[in-house]
């Protein structure tokens, strides 16, 4: 990675970590959409959240779509 360039979604994931404690109280289970440090909103499912993000930020842009859960899930794959 070039100097000064941050990993994709690093800013958004940091913003999520900072605000997760306050969101857990009211928004557990919902999906949050974040671009840089811009909070777009909270949505009931992934598809609704992604569609809202794509409409606001564009189809080809990275933005965070993350379900608010405690603890963070670990997915069994193989």
């Amino acid at each position, binding site marked *: 990675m070039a100097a000064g360039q941050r990993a*994709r*979604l690093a800013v958004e*994931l940091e913003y999520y970590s900072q605000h997760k404690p306050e969101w857990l109280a009211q928004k557990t289970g919902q999906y949050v959409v974040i671009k840089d440090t811009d909070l777009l909103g909270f949505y009931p499912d*992934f*598809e609704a959240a*992604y*569609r809202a993000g*794509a*409409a606001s930020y*564009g*189809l*080809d*842009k*990275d*933005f*965070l*779509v*993350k379900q608010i859960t405690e603890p*963070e*899930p*670990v*997915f*069994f*794959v*193989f």
Partner: protein
Amino acid sequence: MRIYHSPSRNLRDLKIHGPRLKITIGHPILESAPGQSLTSRQTRFTETDALIDTGAQRTVVAPEAVERIGLSKVNEAELRVVGGIKKADVYVASLQFPRCGLGTIEVIEVSCCELPHPLYRCLIGRDVLSRWVFTYEGPVGTWHITEEVDTGWVEPPEGFDPNL
């Protein structure tokens, strides 16, 4: 209702290679996104072989397929795999099944991870299987998928009588 039947081969084929199918992975399909049109962006798709894996909680795509399409990243997640836990990038994609006639999944999260099997670049996980009835018929070496289809039924307004 849509039904896809796997080809009938010898019994060992299914036992050795498992239930697999051709799929097309691509950018999410969002024709209704306000202010956006499909022609305003590079829409790329790739066809690949996928293994139906009832042991996979989520659908997983190999890194080379993700890079070929240029998917947008939406999250990171931890995956429990043989040998421990791996941190994985999560992308948004669409999945199409053109050779099976099954319905397109327009928007889905897919995790990106190196896959241990050389033949498959995608594992179809239980997030996709939750949309289907999947029947594995080991004794005869076949399997099939049944999918409910939205029939577009329109209920007339309550009290509406066309003869009045």
